[in-house]
């Protein structure tokens, strides 16, 4: 039997009972719609997290002073005072496969420019820190290695600081007073947005670590050492080598815990996206349940429909329809029902996610592959739920079917 004729037959059968068709589709519409909407929300959240991970830089290995995975006093990230400039130098000197090493100190300070003042984070870094974080400049440039050696009073400021202190003025070359020490603004950074911890990464002043230690924050220990490995494959070996080196530097005997914490970008990314992965699994479960419920609705109605149309089946068989023809007819009807429902659900889900994005400013993103998955699954649900009723119809005895009142 021709597929086109069968489709036309299915369309006619579905049109014949519009209200029932709509109600049957509703299960599929809401199921697929919910799937698409929640996929859009989680994908949006996931891509946001991924952007944040990417904003860490490329092939980054981070070493914090203090061990915050093992017991003992926890006094905040990097405040244990166990990392020194010697450690950073040793890493730079002895570890192969390391391209950038930037010792980091951090503190907060009152800053002022003209008659404006602002309280912000002060970070001391090396000159190539911005390469490590892939952080481009809106204007100006980084301080130089020479500036680091001489503890020059040069500052790179984030977008938030620039706005707070200078408004619409161009900050480049202007004086910025950090704890009353005058620095010259040498560069303004492109905004990076929020960090994984939800901090404004642009509310920051970055100066040579030497300047920070000698002129602004004081202290002799490092909070963090930022390291860039030469490639992603190098991340793990570099991590291992640094661990060995630092244990040796700090004279930690075997069996004792590290007094520092080391993480590669991959590990941070995995930790951050694990929530998203759990969400995806939950989503998969919800999606299957929704589709099963939609499918059960279709199966139910198809069974009713087969019973109602027993005589029609009998007539068709009498004039020469084979069991297979009847099977295909009802199967196509179920699949048409579920695919149309699925397509409406996809449209509705996308619309819903757009509305959610509009009203909550959550980023939402509908991956094209999920549109494919949703249409395919609704089709499969149609085949599965339509098969039993269709098979039942095809097995009817034409004589009994014709006699059915």
């Amino acid at each position: 039997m021709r597929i086109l004729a069968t489709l036309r037959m299915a369309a006619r059968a579905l049109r014949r009972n519009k209200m029932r068709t709509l109600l049957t589709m509703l299960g599929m519409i809401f199921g697929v719609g919910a799937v698409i909407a929640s996929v859009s929300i989680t994908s949006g959240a996931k891509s946001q997290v991924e952007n944040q991970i990417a904003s860490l830089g490329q092939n980054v290995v981070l070493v914090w002073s203090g061990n915050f995975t093992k017991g003992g006093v926890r006094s905040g990230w990097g405040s244990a005072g166990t990392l020194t400039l010697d450690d950073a130098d040793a890493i730079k000197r002895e570890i192969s496969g390391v391209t950038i090493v930037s010792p980091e100190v951090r503190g907060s300070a009152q800053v002022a420019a003209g008659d404006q003042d602002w309280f912000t984070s002060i970070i001391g870094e090396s000159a190539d820190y911005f390469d490590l974080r892939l952080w481009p400049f809106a204007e100006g440039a980084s301080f130089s290695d020479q500036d680091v050696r001489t503890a020059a009073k040069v500052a790179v400021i984030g977008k938030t600081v620039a706005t707070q202190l200078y408004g619409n003025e161009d900050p480049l070359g202007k004086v910025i007073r950090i704890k009353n020490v005058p620095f010259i603004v040498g560069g303004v950074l492109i905004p990076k947005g929020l960090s994984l911890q939800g901090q404004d990464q642009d509310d920051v002043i970055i100066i040579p670590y030497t300047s920070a230690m000698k002129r602004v924050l004081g202290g002799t220990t490092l909070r963090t050492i930022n390291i860039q490995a030469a490639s992603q494959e190098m991340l793990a070996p570099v991590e291992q080598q640094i661990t060995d080196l630092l244990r040796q530097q700090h004279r930690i005997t075997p069996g004792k815990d590290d007094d520092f914490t080391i993480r590669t970008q991959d590990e941070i990314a995995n930790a951050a996206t694990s929530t998203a992965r759990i969400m995806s699994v939950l989503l998969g479960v919800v999606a299957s349940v929704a589709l099963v419920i939609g499918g059960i609705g279709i199966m139910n109605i198809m069974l009713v429909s087969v019973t109602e149309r027993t005589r029609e089946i009998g007539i068709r068989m009498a004039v020469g329809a084979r069991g297979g023809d009847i099977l295909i007819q009802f199967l196509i009807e179920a699949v048409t029902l579920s695919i149309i429902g699925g397509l409406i659900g996809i449209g509705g889900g996308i619309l819903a996610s757009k509305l959610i994005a509009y009203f909550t400013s959550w980023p939402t993103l509908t991956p094209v592959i999920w549109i494919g998955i949703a249409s395919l699954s609704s089709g499969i649900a149609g085949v599965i739920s339509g098969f039993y009723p269709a098979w039942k119809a095809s097995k009817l005895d034409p004589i009994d079917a014709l006699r059915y009142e």
Partner: protein
Amino acid sequence: MQTNPVIKLAEIHKVYHTGEVDVHAVRGVSLDILPGEFVAIMGSSGSGKSTLMNMIGCLDRPTRGTYLLDGIDVSTLNRDALADVRNEKIGFVFQGFNLLSRTSALENVEMPMLYNRSHISAHEQNERAQGALELVGLGERADHHPNQLSGGQQQRVAIARALVNRPSLILADEPTGNLDSQTSIEIMGVFQKLNDQGITIIMVTHELDIARYTKRTVVLRDGKIVTDEAVRERLVAETELRHLREAQQAINLST
């Protein structure tokens, strides 16, 4: 010249196994029906005539005996093969018309062609269905739905549907059972016209006066043929209808 029978039944038996007792519905029927015959199968209920019709119509298989339809032994065919035989060789007309509701007359008539194993183009389907409707005098009403047609008109649509695959025979099961007497005669007129064109027709009926429009009467009792004879004083639908109209005019029932 010897013509091969359209239907050749030899010692047909049908036994139903229902519960504890076996019901022997047809007990050794042998029957030859030649092309161009118009046969009425008669019998009271329980005589086995419906069972026999189901077997002739390839809706059911005999328990024993052979059945040659158009020279093909159909008594051993499987379900699908029987469906194909029904599609190509047999046209069915039922007591309750059995049209698909909310489906136009034309589409109802096209339906058997959907299941034809040789591809019939949509255009040809349409033409053949229209042609069949014209043959039964309903060319004007092709787009009407069954609920817009009278009983007689519905039965004409059913006859057109039975004709459309150009079958070897038409099987009619109490085709006038749901119709008033005048419409019944009209339908018999349609059958007589088709039979005059050479179409073989087998009809089950329990109405004696309807059977008189056929050419041969087979009477069944207890699953066996008790009478098989040519119809004497055969009625012609056209003449009967004329008489009926004259009678109606006489009492001003119609103009």
